[in-house]
């Protein structure tokens, strides 16, 4: 399988990448790790005329602590998230999710920015970023804007990013020393989640619970969170996991089975906090 032909541009700076996006309009795609885009191009599901490779922009690969926030550059690989000491200490949920992605080779190439921008409803990091109250920083021709993770995912593989915007930073609320859990059910070892759960405890008693595989986008399990905040025991709250969700009903799993999985996995995640 060979992708359709395209013009290749290697961006030397964020500014150049933005200029290329602005110039080529709808016919251009950014290339980060390439582990969602290239498979889609090989299947000719996507045929961009221009590919702007941002893979060499080392200034976009970092993990830093900024006050109460952990800030992550979009080009940080899944592999780095798995091992980074700052991630391990302050947002270990992110490492737990990264560790469950695909296989080592995929994790060596794939990036957090690519994963979020690709906006797959089953993306593991999306669940973690949602549960960590993430803010996604987008930069476009008219400047920089913050998009809360809860507003970022707008549909199946579509996000709030405009075509001329670059995701330039992910900001996460530090959760140092707090309980967390990542639960994922997949069919084969390397497969995507059928359903996955990211749960993050907070000192004020509000636990964040995010689901993947339970709708058109990764989402927060609002009813579970509210029940927990109201003091409902975890075992009862987890029974609300699928409330308000419209999971896919397809060859991978029926909607009823996904709903069952969500309840079981949320139960496990809450028990592990």
């Amino acid at each position: 399988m060979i992708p359709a032909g395209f013009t290749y541009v290697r961006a030397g700076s964020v500014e150049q990448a933005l200029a290329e996006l602005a110039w080529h309009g709808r016919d251009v795609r950014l290339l980060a790790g390439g582990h969602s885009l290239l498979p889609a191009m090989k299947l000719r599901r996507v045929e961009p005329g221009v590919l702007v490779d941002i893979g060499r922009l080392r200034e976009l690969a970092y993990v830093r602590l900024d006050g109460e926030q952990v800030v992550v550059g979009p080009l940080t690989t899944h592999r780095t998230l798995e091992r980074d000491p700052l991630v391990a200490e302050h947002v270990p949920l992110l490492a737990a999710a990264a560790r469950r992605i695909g296989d080592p080779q995929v994790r060596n190439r794939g990036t957090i920015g690519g994963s979020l921008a690709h906006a797959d409803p089953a993306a593991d990091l999306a669940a973690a970023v949602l549960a960590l109250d993430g803010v996604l920083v987008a930069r476009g021709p008219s400047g920089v804007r913050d998009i809360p993770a809860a507003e970022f995912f707008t549909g199946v593989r579509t996000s709030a990013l405009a075509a001329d915007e670059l995701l330039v930073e992910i900001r996460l609320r530090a959760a140092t020393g707090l309980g967390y859990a990542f639960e994922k059910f997949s069919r084969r070892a390397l497969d995507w989640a059928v359903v996955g759960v990211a749960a993050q405890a907070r000192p004020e008693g509000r636990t964040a619970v995010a689901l993947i595989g339970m709708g058109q986008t990764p989402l927060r399990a609002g009813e579970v969170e509210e029940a927990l905040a109201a003091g409902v025991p975890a075992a009862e709250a987890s029974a609300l996991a699928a409330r308000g969700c419209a999971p896919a009903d397809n060859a991978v799993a029926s909607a009823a089975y996904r709903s069952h999985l969500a309840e079981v996995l949320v139960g496990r995640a809450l028990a592990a906090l």
Partner: protein
Amino acid sequence: MRVEITVNGRPHEREVEPRLLLVHFLRDLLSLTGTHVGCDTTSCGACTVLLDGVAVKSCTVLAAQADGCEVTTVEGLGGPDGLSPVQEGFRQCHGLQCGYCTPGMVMAATALLAERPDPSEQEIRDGLKGNMCRCTGYQMIVESVQWAAANGGAR
């Protein structure tokens, strides 16, 4: 476009189409056919090579992305007159039958041992999760990697 990729220590400069995949650069332009194409969908790991020392599936990397980088293929590990410990491990422990998955397995195992010289059985299984074998049932592959770990490791 022009790319220069150092493969197994030797620089190779070629004019390529941007859409050329690294695995085809290696196989078709350099005739290094040790790197196999199994699934072509980033699943099987037969095409695994080291890109700047890191294991990647070369069917899902553009040659353009590897421009200026160093690639190691199974041919770069060792030949008949001197196998690498991982290659020798596969020989000693019968870690292959048809051999189709073997170059990818050997490269993934080499990357694993470079990072974890003394892996547990579970770490070996996790480290080779991206590589499929339709013949061996994996047990002998795990034993091959254990043999390599005890006899020289990644190099």
